[in-house]
Every structure is written in C-alpha cells, then in structure tokens.
C-alpha cells in the first residue's frame, strides 16, 4: 500500500452463499483513496456497491483480500476491535433508517460521541455546531419523525462527522431525496469535506451526484472499470 493513501483495498472478493449457489458480489477489487478525497462509487444496481462499502466499513467480512484504513488493516481485526474501530474512525450515512427514533436531532448527532464517553457539554456543543453547519439550527430538539427525509439525512451526515472520523462512508445517501434536497445534501457534504478535511466515499447511481464527485470508482458486476 501507498503510505499517503487513507484507504487501501487490495484484491477484495466477497462471495455470498445463497440457496441458488454462491454469488460473487465483489470479484477482486483493488483501489486507493487519498486523505481528504470526495469520492463516489458508481455503477448499476446490483454491481456490488453496498457489498464493497460494507466490507470497507467493517460491517461485513470479506471472502478474501485486505483492507487498510489509516494504517490499520481492518480485515485482520477481531470483532471487538472492528466495533471499536468503527466507533472511533468511521462515520456512516445510510440510505434510510439512520436515526434513533427516540432521540432528538442533537442527541442523534451526539450518539456516537456518547458511546465514546464524551461529556455532555462537549457533545452538545459539537452537535449544535454540526447541526448549524448542515443548516438545521433551530431543529436541535426535534425528533426524527418531526423532520423531513432530507433533514433526517442531514442529521445523519452531521452525526457521521461528529467524532471527526478518518473516513465517512455513505451508501446512496440521496436515494430517497428529491433533486433539491439532493443538491443541498451534497453541498453540505462537500463543504464539510473542505472545512473539516474529512474523507468521503459515497455510492450512487444518480448522475447528478456522480457529477459532484472529485474521484470516481466505476463498478460493474463486482469489478472495477478503468
């Protein structure tokens, strides 16, 4: 691996066992991502984007291959250590169901910091700062059910950044949003990428989103296209 690369994926293969036999979702992908990048993983439905992102985030195991993040080989960590690594080093934004329904906006943003054991003052300050950065000042004590889909995704982005992770992974974060909300979310993500220097890797098949990415990884049938 190159020393400067924040993320390095080497020959990752993921095979699912299904009733119809084994399915190769990712077939030997290698890629590198530089620190501070704003990158997209694109490709048609079923090409393996989610599978690859899950592997990078340590949510799912790989069949073979290795993944390094910030110098740590996460494919070599025990389950406990992976959870610990996720908690401190990776931020996630999912397509939906990102938020804890019984926590309000700022508590959701502070969720990861609370798991890390940060004091309430530090948590609240950081959460309010981030909610303001994603344009949700004044919505701090609203529960997710009282927010629109786009607002919920912005809370999720704020949360992903809360503990200053090395890498934010977002699997189709705009899939459920209209074009206006999509633009807004991408503006925010890009701004945070610039301001906080956080590395972003998001998947999408939306051309509007693809245009915003500074680095593109094209996936087709589980293989990276040149």
């Amino acid at each position: 691996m190159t020393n400067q690369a924040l993320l390095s994926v080497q020959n990752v293969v993921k095979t699912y066992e299904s009733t119809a036999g084994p399915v190769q979702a990712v077939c030997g992908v290698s890629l590198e991502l530089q620190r501070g990048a704003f990158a997209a993983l694109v490709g048609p439905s079923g090409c393996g984007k989610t599978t690859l992102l899950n592997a990078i985030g340590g949510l799912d195991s790989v069949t073979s291959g290795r993944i390094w993040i910030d110098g740590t080989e996460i494919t070599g960590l025990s389950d406990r250590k992976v959870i610990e690594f996720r908690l401190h080093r990776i931020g996630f934004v999912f397509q939906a169901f990102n938020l804890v329904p019984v926590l309000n906006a700022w508590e959701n943003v502070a969720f990861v910091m609370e798991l890390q054991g940060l004091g309430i003052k530090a948590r609240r300050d950081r959460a309010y700062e981030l909610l303001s950065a994603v344009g949700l000042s004044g919505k701090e004590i609203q529960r997710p059910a009282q927010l629109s889909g786009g607002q919920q995704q912005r809370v999720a982005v704020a949360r992903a950044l809360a503990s200053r992770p090395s890498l934010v992974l977002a699997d189709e974060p705009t899939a459920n949003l209209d074009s206006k909300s999509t633009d807004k979310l991408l503006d925010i993500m890009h701004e945070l990428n610039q301001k906080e220097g956080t590395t972003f890797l998001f998947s999408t098949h939306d051309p509007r989103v693809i245009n915003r990415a500074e680095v593109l990884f094209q996936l087709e049938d589980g293989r990276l296209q040149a």
Partner: protein
Amino acid sequence: MNRSKLFARQSELGLAARLAFRNLGRNRRRSLITGAAISFALFFAIILRSLQLGVYGHMVSTVVGSMSGYVQVSDTAYWPSQNLDYSLYEDQQWLERLRQDPEVASAYPRIQGFGLLSVGDRSGVAQWIGLSPEEAQSSLWQTRLASGSWESGPGSVWLGKRLAEQLQVEPGDSLVAMGQGFQGSVAGASWVLAGTLHMGNPELEKRSAIIELKDAQDFSGAYGMWSYVQITPQRREINQDPSAELGARHPLDGAHFLSWQTRMPELIQTIQADTTGGRVILFILYVVIGFGLLGTMIMLANERRREFAMQLAMGMRRGLLAGTVFIEILLLSLAGAATGILAGRIAVLILERYPLRLWGDVAAAIEQQGWEAILPPSLDWSISFTHAGIIVLIALIASAWPLRTVFKTSPVHR
C-alpha cells in the same frame, strides 16, 4: 480499564437507561397493554392465592387454633380416643417453662369430655371444655362473646350460640349437665348460662359448652388433671410443624407433642388437593400471559431490527444494546408488577374488611362440613412478592427473544 474507558462505560449506561425509558413511551399503547396484562395477571394471582391460603388459614385457625390446638401435648394414649381416663397430671412448672419458650405464643391446659345438657324437656349433646382463666381472658375468647358476659361465678357455662338456641336458653337460665366422669364415675352438675359464643364454625357452635377448668375438674372428678395442653406456636403456616422441636425442648413424662397435621391428616389432604387445583389455574394463567408477552416481544424485536442494525453499525456494543432492551423490559415488568401488587393489596384489604360470603347450595354444603361459608383472604405479603417475582421472571424470559435478535442482527444494512 483506564479512566477514559471507565468514563465511557458510565456514559454508555446512562445512554442505555435513557433509550430504554424513552422506548417505553414510544409505543405507549403497547407498553400500557403489556404492563396492564402483567398487572392484571398478578392482581388475579394475588387475589386467588390470598383467598385460597386465607381460607385454609381460617379453616385451620377455627378448627385447630382455638380448639384442639396447633400443637397438643397429651398422654400418649389420649389420641385418638380422647378418653378422659388418659389425662395428664398438672405440672405448673413445666407449663411455665413451656410458656417461656420463644417459639410458643400461648400454651393453655384444658380438660374436656362429652355430656348431655338439659333444660326442662329440651336436651342436647355437648362437648364440655374446661378453660383456664388465662385462656378465657385471651382476646380470642373475649371477642367470641355473642351475648351475656365473661364476668361470672363458679358453675357458669357459656354455650355455642346454636346450642343455646336449640336449648332455648338465655343468660341467667340454669341447665343440668350429665356425663361420664373420670374412671367410670358419673358426672353431674347444675350450671348457669353466663353467655353465648360465636365459634367461627357452625359445627362447634352446635356442640360447645365452655366452663372454667376448676369447674370441669370438679364436674368430671378428674381432680388436678388436664386432658391436654393446647399450644399456639409462633409459626402457624400450614407447612410448619414445630411439634417435634418443642417436644425435644420440653419433655413431659408419659406425654407427647402432636401437631394438627398429624392429628388431622384429612384436613391436610383437603388443603393439598385444593391448593393443587389453584396452582393449576395459576399455571395456565401464567402460560397464557407468558405466550402473550412472548408475542409482544417478537413484535418489538421485529420492529426494531433495522434500528438495532444501525446502532451496531455506529459502533454500539451488542452487550450494551441488549442491556438497553433488557432495561426497557425490566422497567415495564416492574411497573406492571408494582401496579399489580398495589391493586391486589387493595382488593385483599377490601376482602378482609368485607369477606366474600358463599351462598346457596355451596354454602350449605360447606356449613354441613363444619366450616363457616366465608372466604377470608390471607394478608401474607409473601403471596404478592412470590407472584410478582414469578411474573417478572416470565417477562424477563420472554425478553430472551429480543435479546436473541440483538445478538443475531448483523450490522449490515438492507
């Protein structure tokens, strides 16, 4: 564990408790219904068991407690013939020592036998019982007075209310008593009715004639003798038998200590048969409630599957997530149990104040067997706590389902 990790653990617990608490309010109707199911089952169990155990206690205390005694000390040949000839010689020193025993609530000597009472052309069979002055002054006997008074001179007699009605006598009237005395002698005396008594048991009310111990000894010719000493121990629960223990501490020549359980095996059998019936009903109730709770838990687990996955993906430890769910269910079942105990207690206290009275054929059948047809509840707190414990345990066992879901859910988002 270093300091920051320790701090994280504290913070985690706070988070778990907060999530648990808020999750309770999330589906308020479901929480209420689940809590209410727990409360109601407990309420029902408490009332059922309290009435059941109360009735047994009532049976035992009326039939055994005030009459033949929880523990009886008698000549080894006295039981079961209850023949006056097998009486004990008075031993006041022994009696005093017995009364000092911390396990002994009271110990009263008695002498008793059967005789015929008559007034004019009316007569009836009576069991005469000679009570010591201490026993006659005990609150139990004092509260039994239906008419007349306990103030009296020698030759006074107090009759069970029904016996007095049958003989048509009022306080102040004289009666003639006859019977078999000590060692074949003929007993005879004239008594004056001093009062009538409620005996708590119709059969006893029809046949009891209470006289003073001294009068009874004179009447029967068994001077200086006791038929038995009636002991009320501190531990009176149905499953307690302190007779052997007491017998070992206070031996008396030629006498033995018999528990009511030994003297009246049929009473114990009746109770055991009945209590099994009650337990079966409760078991069915608990099975039904248990499956109901399990259904709720499965629903809860399914609803939260995605949320669990998300929280795990964020880096929440499975143990902590499981703890959150566990605390939620624990809080819910404790709240349900507390309400159930409260409601059950109130109901039991009301039933104590206004006991259920049976009526019709059932009542008649019960009275025929010698029991008063009322259902007084037991006030024993252990009934409430035992059943609260059982139902909370059932809820926690049902929580195994969502806990299993927590441990099986993959953090992978779908």
